[in-house]
Structures are given as structure tokens and as C-alpha cells.
């Protein structure tokens, strides 16, 4: 980065003499301006701001030192956020999900889940959702939300009781087991579907600020890991959950995203989307 002037000029003494005023005054000018800006930015203006505190507090706040409550840096307001779900996606959470043991999960699933969701995870009829081909994160989040009471509506009372009896490790084991069941379902053509429903699913309706369902629930690699796959879920289950989101009864969606979306869908769109993605519930053959 540095660049050396070749000192090959004929008269170094003259050069130095020519340089001196420039070096001096440029340094003074540049330095003085910076010092004045620092004086105002770190002392005068912060002292004049509401917030108070002694001199050291005020200067530390202007520097942005954590703990000194810079109103810009740390929110400062009194409003507290109320997360919709107790699950936050951190490295630790992902590590816990990744530590799930599918063999232990299979054992547990047979004892706890199979009665309603079937030994193969495909559910028994339309009112018990299919658990296969979901990501481990999706299963993990829903079980945790049942456990914490974040997820309401539908059969949440039953599920809360079951989930509360499970440890975090057992939830991760179940998630690992179901994630390994069955290969991801591919999108299948729905021949007789209204074009507007297909467009809603694939492109969304930006004019109504509705994103495409596929952007989170499709098979793209960049979708949120915890968003459930909709393909081949029971239509009746999809419709029921969209209605619960629309009424606000189910509210474990981060940032209220699904509540926002479901509220703006018409009943016809809700049932159309449920048919587009889902399968009609059938009673599983007796075991």
C-alpha cells in the first residue's frame, strides 16, 4: 500500500523547504477537523441528548460500549418482544436437533406416536397429519411448541400432554426418526386445479403482499429448514391449520407470517391450496 517517493530530486534541501508548509498545514487542518468532529460526536452532542448519566457513561454510550445503553444500539424502548415460539434457530438448537438418535426415536415413536400417526408415520385418516418426509427441524419445532404451549388449536390439548412428557433429547430423537422416514415427496401435477391457485402456490400474489407458498414450503434448498413440506399432507389437515392461522387461534408462527398470509386468503383459496398440495384422507389399512 505504501508508495515511496524516489529521492532522486536534484536538490533535497529545496524539496524539504517546499514541503514544510504543506506538511504542517495539511496535518493541522486535517487533524483539527477530525478533533472537532470527535469533540462534538463523543462529548458535546451525547451530553445534550436525553438519557443522562455521568460523563463516562455518556462517552461510553457514544462509543457504543455494550452495557451503557446507547439508545440507538440497544433498542432502549420499554416494549418487550413476545416471541411466537420458544424455539430460536441458533447453532446450539441446530446442534441439539442434529444429535437426535433415530433408533431411539423409532422405539419411542412405536410407543407414543404410532397409535394416531401410524406405524409408518402416514397417519390414520385426514385428522392426524402425516409425519414422514418432514425435516427434523420441522418436527422438533412443532413438538417443542406443543410442549411450551405456543401451539394451540386442533388437537393441541392432547399433543401438549404428550410433548410435556418428552425430554429435549427425546424430541430430537423423534425428529431424527421421522426425518429419515421415506424420501422427500416430489411435486406432483394437479391436473384439474384452477390456474390462480397454482399461481398462488408457485408465484404468490405480490400485489396482495402474498409470497409464494413454495418459497418456504416447496422443495427449494434455500427454504427455511423448519417450514413443513406440504406435498402429500392430508388436504383436510392443511385446510384446518390455515383456518386456525386465519382466526389467530394457532399462533406459533414466527413474526406472525402465517397468520398474516392466511388472513388474506379467501376460503376458496384456502381449500384450493389444500387440495393442490394435499391428498385426500384415507383410513389406513388395519395393522
Amino acid at each position, binding site marked *: *500500500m*505504501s*508508495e*515511496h*517517493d*524516489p529521492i*532522486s*530530486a*536534484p*536538490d533535497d534541501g*529545496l*524539496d524539504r523547504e*517546499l*514541503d514544510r508548509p*504543506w*506538511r504542517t498545514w*495539511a*496535518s493541522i487542518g*486535517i487533524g483539527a*477537523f*477530525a478533533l*472537532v*468532529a*470527535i469533540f*462534538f*460526536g*463523543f462529548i458535546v*452532542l*451525547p451530553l445534550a441528548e436525553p438519557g443522562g448519566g455521568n460523563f463516562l457513561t455518556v*462517552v461510553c*454510550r*457514544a*462509543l*457504543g*460500549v*455494550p452495557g451503557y445503553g*446507547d439508545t*440507538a*444500539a*440497544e*433498542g432502549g424502548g420499554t416494549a418487550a418482544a413476545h416471541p411466537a415460539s420458544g424455539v430460536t*434457530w*441458533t*447453532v446450539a438448537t*441446530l446442534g441439539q436437533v442434529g444429535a437426535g438418535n433415530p433408533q431411539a426415536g423409532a422405539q419411542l415413536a412405536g410407543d407414543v406416536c404410532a397409535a394416531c400417526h401410524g406405524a409408518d408415520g402416514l397417519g390414520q385418516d385426514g385428522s392426524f397429519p402425516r409425519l414422514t418426509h418432514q425435516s427434523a427441524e420441522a418436527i422438533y419445532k412443532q413438538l417443542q411448541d406443543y410442549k411450551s404451549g405456543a401451539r394451540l388449536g386442533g388437537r393441541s390439548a392432547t399433543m401438549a400432554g404428550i410433548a410435556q412428557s418428552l425430554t429435549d433429547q427425546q424430541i430430537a430423537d423423534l425428529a431424527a426418526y421421522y426425518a429419515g422416514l421415506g424420501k422427500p415427496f416430489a411435486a406432483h401435477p394437479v391436473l384439474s386445479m384452477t390456474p390462480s391457485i397454482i399461481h398462488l402456490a408457485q*408465484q*404468490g400474489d*405480490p*400485489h*396482495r*403482499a402474498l*409470497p*409464494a407458498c413454495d*418459497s418456504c414450503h416447496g422443495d427449494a*434448498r*434455500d427454504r427455511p429448514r423448519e417450514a413443513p413440506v406440504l406435498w402429500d399432507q392430508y388436504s383436510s389437515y392443511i385446510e384446518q391449520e390455515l383456518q386456525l392461522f386465519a382466526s389467530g387461534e394457532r399462533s406459533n408462527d414466527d413474526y406472525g407470517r402465517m397468520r398474516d398470509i392466511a388472513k388474506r386468503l379467501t376460503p376458496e383459496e384456502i381449500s384450493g391450496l389444500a387440495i393442490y398440495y394435499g391428498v385426500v384422507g384415507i383410513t389406513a389399512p388395519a395393522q
Partner: protein
Amino acid sequence: MWVAFGVFGLAAILGAWQMWVRSPIPAPFASPDTYYASVTAHGTLMAYVLTTLFAMGFGYYVAVSALDRPLPGLRYAWIAFWMAVVGVAMAAVTVLLGKASVLYTFYPPLTGSAFYYIGLVLVVVASWVWVAIMLIAMRGWKRGNPGKPVPLAMFGTVANAILWGWTTVGVAAELLFQVIPAALGWTDTIDVGLSRTLFSWTLHAIVYFWLLPAYIAFYTMVPQAAGSRLYSDLMGRVSFILFLVYSLPVGMHHLLMDPEHGSGFKFLQSALTGLVTVPTLLTIFTITASLEIAGRLRGGTGLFGWVAKLPWREPMVLATGLSFFMLGFGGFGGIVNMSYGMNAMIHNTAWVTAHFHLIFGGAVVIMYFAIAYAIWPRLTGHEAANLRQVRLQLWLWTIGIVIVTFPWHMLGLQGQPRRVESFDYSDPLIAGWAPWVVVSMIGGFIMLASALLFIWNLATLFRGAPSTQPTRYAMAVHPPRRLPPVLNGFGMWNVVVLVLMLVAYGYPIAQFFIYGSNQALVQRLD
């Protein structure tokens, strides 16, 4: 140059199409995916590729023509050129495949395909070769001409090369240590605060890197084209030095709404940003004075009579007039952006887009056109057959950019967000935006017409009389005979930049290492 202008043509098409998508009129191929891929491609090609390749090509041209010496390291220059071409191809193909729709400002923790970032790194590394060659060329000339002032065109070019060296450190650190490891899957988390801080280091200085070729033309080509002399060589040197010093420790005005920094640093960097008005005003004064000499020599009288007498038929003079017009409006808009308080009104709105399209797309790129028209005869060996098409192209560009950006400024004040694919114009709150978006879309197509005409002009016009004159840069009214070495080199100014950067960015970057960082999960888009 052809590569630069080729991608410019492609990106101009994308830009006009993007405005069509945002307008109430249904556009072909419109979807959020194509829109964001297109915005990424438009920004990447215009802001990184066009500018870097243009600056490199123009720098090589100046080094040979102003110093009157062969280019040192010609072989390395060609290697760097092909490296840049490969990098551009990698980045452009990745974006157009929709594998890196992260916008040209990257926005971690979003990460696209690693090919996109690695392609950009290749372009940056190629430009570092150019920086080295510029420094070696100036040093070689100084050795051969001890005590003599470096020609102003080369002085400005080396100022820009050094500025670029400093500028790229921030983004290179972000890409190499944060984004590329994330894109390759080596890391699952990224400290967004740190990466935004590093990007801000680059984000404002890069603007002056784009701008300086235009200023080099103002000082060294415009007075010559107008048949005049440069009013002051000293002002040119001081302006280039001030741009070098005050384009770097100022980038935090891009982070005024970000939570990770204290208000004191934001104020300090905003205040330092204000100083870039100084070289801009010095330049406008000096060049206007130089043109006034030309106008009076041609018989102009009175306070403004000389303006009418200027040789407006010369593309370089016409482009300068139009550029100053756009620079004036764009400059005042920019003062709003950099102000700690006022920025909040227009943050992330169409105002910001309007500002940099007016300054960069308008005032600067029109000078790229003028420079290309001025040096094409030397490169092709033929003068332009006629200049009418050239002037038409320059006028169309200016009219287009005014029609595009003036509505954007108004819409930005009304809160229209930038980088949004479509709007619900049936909502009465924003229904009033619709006609203005259509107006700016029309401006976009006028600009596109001008862009295509520019490429057509370069390809077809230069078939006239053989060009025999060597390139002449403007003489100063009082040509400097002996300069203090501080005004003839950059040793001291590099130290000043280092000190100011330590003051302005030292703690803001160090805090991420002192207090530990907040990691966000990487979100992969490829």
C-alpha cells in the same frame, strides 16, 4: 473497454426491465425470482464490472499517453485482463442462473453460490495488478524525470489506483474471511454486524473510484477540448488528494440506521463525509473558470455571455455541461443521505437509488462516454465520421436519467421502498405512486435507447479520416515547474489515510473481537 461496455449494454436492458416490473404495467418474465436475479446482475455488472474494467483500461491509456512511455508489465496487464474476464463470466453466469440473487451489496447472512463471490474476487485481484502497474509506471517516470511534476492525468490516475487499493481491503476481508467460507459450507454462521462494517469500508470509497476517471477528464481533457487551458493545476492535485483522504474514513454513513455502532462514530464519519464536498466544489470552480477562459477567447462577453460561446458541438464539452447539471442535483441529494438526522427520512427508499443513479449513472457515466469518444480515434486510428449521433446519444442519456431519477426522489420522500418487486397500486395509500413509476419507466427506456446508441456509435462511427494527432492533455495556465514532493506523490497521504482509518474504523471493527460477536445462521440461496 469492449468488455466493459458490453456488460453495460446487457445491464442497461435489465435496468429498464426492472422498472417495468415495478410499474403497474404487466411485464414479461416478471416474478420475484427473476426480478432479484436481475437486480443483482444489474448492480454487479454496472457497479463492479463496467467501472473496474473502464478504470483499468483508461488507466493504462493514460499511463502510456500522458507519460509517453511504454507500459511496464504489459504481459501482466493482459493476464489480469483475462483473469477479470473469467471472473466476470463466473459471476454473471451464476447470477443469471438465479444461484446468487443476493444483490450486489451481498446482504449476509444470505449467501449465494460461491462461484459468484469467487468470480468477483478474481476481478478484484486483476484490478490489484492494475494498481501495481500504475504505481510502477509513475515511479519509473519519476526516476527518468527527477524533480519534474508528474503529469496531472497520471497523478489523478495513480490517486485513483491507490484509493482503489485501500477501498478493496474491506470487501476483500468480508468475502475471503466471512462470505466465501459460508458459501462453501465451511461455516454455518456469520457475524452480520462485522460484515456490514467491512462492506461499508468499501461501499463509499468505491463510489469515488467510479468518479475519479470523470474528474481526470474534467481536469485534463475538457479544457483541451474547449480550446482552453486548465485554470489551476494545483487545484487538480489538491482535489485528487482530498478525494483519496476523505473517501475512506466515511463509509459508516451507510450504517446510520444499523445498531452495531455507537452514535459518536456515526457522527464523526458523517462529518468527514461532508468534506468531500470540498474537492467537488474546487473542481466545479476550476473547470468553470477554465471554460470561461475558452468562452471569452471565443468572443463571449458579460457575466454569462461566455457560456453561449463555448464549443458545445464538442462531445467532451457537452458532456461536461450535462454532467455538471446532474452532479448539482445529485450532490444535494447526497448531502441528505449522509446527514445523520436527515437520512432517516429516506433510508432504503427510492430516494437513495435516485441519488446514485443521478450521480454515478448520470454525471459519471456520461463522462465515461465522453472519454470513450475522445480516445476511440487513437485506439481505432480513425476519427468519428460525424458527431451528431454522439451528441444525440449524450442528450438522450441526460434526458433519460432526469426522467428516471426525479420521480424516484419524489417517491422516495413518500416512502416508496427500493428493491421491491411489485406494489399493490390498488391500495389508495400508494395509488398515487403509479403514474410516477410509469414516468420513470419511460425514462429507463430512453436511457436504454441511449445505451444501445452508444455501443452502436463506438462500433460504427469511427470510420472517418485517419487519426494522426497524439493525445494531448490540457496545459495549465501556469504549468507547474517545481512542486513540493507532497503534491507530486502519495507517501504522506497514505499515512494520513491510515491514521484517519484507525480513528474512524479502528474501534468499530475491533469491538467485534473485544466483546465477542453475534453470529447469525447462514441462509443459502443457491
